[in-house]
């Protein structure tokens, strides 16, 4: 599995755990990282820049360090 997918799972778990509005939070992270989470699958190839952006967005929106 890719790092991007791992991050996506981490984000979805955090949303579930905190009972947040999944659409709104995923939308914010998607806009900040420039990538829709729906497009990230286990086969999505890792691009270092994309991973860094998603990680940064997750930190800003959900305050998680991945």
């Amino acid at each position: 599995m890719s790092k991007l997918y791992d991050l996506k799972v981490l984000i979805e778990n955090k949303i579930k755990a905190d009972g947040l509005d999944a659409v709104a939070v995923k939308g914010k992270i998607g806009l900040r990282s420039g990538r829709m989470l729906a497009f990230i699958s286990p086969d999505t190839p890792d691009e270092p820049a994309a991973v860094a952006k998603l990680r940064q967005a997750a930190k800003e929106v959900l305050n998680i360090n991945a």
Partner: protein
Amino acid sequence: MKWNLIRTKVLAALLACLVVGVGGILALTSYSFSRNSQALAVESVSGAQKLFTILEAREISKMTSVSEALVANPQVRDAFVARDRPRLLEFTAPLYSKLKSEGITNWMFHTPEPDMAVFLRLHAPAKFGDRLDRFLDKEVVRTHAMVAGNELAKAGFAVRILRPVNDAHGSVAGYVEFGEELGQFIHAMKSQTGDDYGLLLSKKFVDKQFWADSNAQWKRRDNWNDNPDFVVADNTTATGNIIKFQGDLASTPAEGKVLERIHDGDSVYVRGIFPIRDASGNTVGAMFVVRDISSVYQAMRHTRNVLVLLIVVSLSLGMALVLMLLNSLVFRRLQHIIAIATCVVGGDYESEIPSGADDEVGQLEQLFEQFRRVFVHLLSCIPELQEK
């Protein structure tokens, strides 16, 4: 507060307008008050000068009439020609008490030239025989006709007339003089205008010892040392606080001069001064004019406060209205567009952006909604997303 927000910038601009508006009103009312007070001061000085001239002319006219009646009286004339002082006093004393109540304070008979000594002083009968040697004395001797004008004696400033008294053959037997203290004028002027006045005399023309004696006689405080260059002969105010002058009386322009405005407690005064010349043309004194403009000042301040309140209230209401309109017409709708865009990216493809208005933001909403539909249609074509 975030300075990058349009709301903050608009609010700052409106607050700046408020400050400029209030500052403008304050500056305008202050300027207006200065202009008005200056105009009032100019009007006070010129009005006082005119009134003084009128009173002076009126008193000269009165003394002229009295003197004409007097020299036509054979009993008085004969007693004077005969140099019979007791008889002259007997005929004139009753009249003097009446004239005194009308303001004529000085009445003298003078012997003819070359002596021209005082033969009888109705206001001080025991004192006679002295020579005054004043400008008007010389003028009446030179012209042998009536002369009039202001003359400053050792202890007082009076408007005087002198005229020859002829004997039965038409020769000059002496002179009669009437005078009225100028200090009395200021009280008449105050009763007519309500302004306060002070009569200032240059020390160059007043004898210090005579001034002290005169003050002692009238039971007045000796104010010789109050001012360096002049003495206040009389004033209409209870205190001399508002009569302050640092300049040289002799350099006061003929049309008068407006002095600085002063505040004394809650009262505001405008002040001015105009010169008073004697018969020879010397500036021997000046009239100090003080007008209380407290009521004008209060009215102006009230108007200023009302204007400031009006501006603050109207601009505050304007600010609230502008912010409310911006909020409902722009900011809230922009936030809605942002929320919908975020939801679409987050996976909610059904949320639509409603557009009810055909304004600028409405056009943006329509564009965004069209863009959203294109985007959702594009996503529907991606197989990965179909499964989810």
